């Protein structure tokens, strides 16, 4: 081994900007912030709910209204759909290939199954919330 191996100069903080695939990777990684944010938002809802008074819950609902919240949730919904939900479904055949004897289940079966299951789960949640 050489005494002074060549180390390609590379920024530790902006390395992903050099390549389109790495940029998409970082855009996907950012959805973890949304996951954390909405988990805590649900937790804040639970805090309001645990007070046991309708007024407190209505205050929480009122605090979540307004054009800035519409903009936030609208942006978050689109960002999350494309960079987490659809990305996760489309990667599923690579993460969890299904072996059938000698062959593998075709990737698009697994992807389509995810979208179908997602539609069912979403419909169930909207039904549970009384939105449909």
């Amino acid at each position: 081994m050489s005494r002074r191996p060549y180390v390609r100069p590379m920024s530790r903080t902006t390395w992903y900007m050099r390549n389109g695939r790495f940029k998409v990777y970082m855009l996907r990684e950012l959805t973890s912030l949304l996951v954390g944010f909405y988990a805590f938002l649900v937790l804040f809802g639970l805090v309001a709910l645990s007070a046991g008074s309708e007024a407190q819950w209505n205050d929480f609902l009122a605090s979540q209204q307004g054009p800035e919240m519409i903009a936030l949730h609208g942006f978050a919904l689109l960002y999350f759909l494309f960079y987490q939900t659809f990305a996760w479904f489309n990667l599923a055949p690579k993460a969890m290939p299904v072996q059938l004897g000698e062959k593998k289940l075709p990737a698009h079966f697994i992807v389509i199954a995810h979208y179908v299951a997602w539609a069912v789960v979403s419909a169930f949640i909207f039904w549970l919330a009384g939105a449909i």
Partner: protein
Amino acid sequence: MTIARKALVWGLFAAGGTLTSFVFPSLIALFLLIASGNTPVGLEYGQIHAFAASWMGKASLFGVIFLALWHAAHRLRVAAHDLGLRVDGLVASVLYLVAALGSALAVYYLVLI
């Protein structure tokens, strides 16, 4: 890290990723409905309180919060490294502690309901 611990950390990350991918679009859409003043009837006090008071409601709310927080903590840990913050021990401790604290608070408030 031992293989057993790695399996646990990764398994919870994968479970959280799958759960949030399926459930969070609807969850965000519900917040969008609330934000626009169209709160669905199921989220009015009586109904949502009854849901959170039931064992099924408690279990699903805890499952969503716990797995989402764990998933976010694990991915933010990797993102911190990718963004040049290379103090994994400290970053991991802080993030997993926040996730554990949030999960414990979820249990506490769910028990109160």
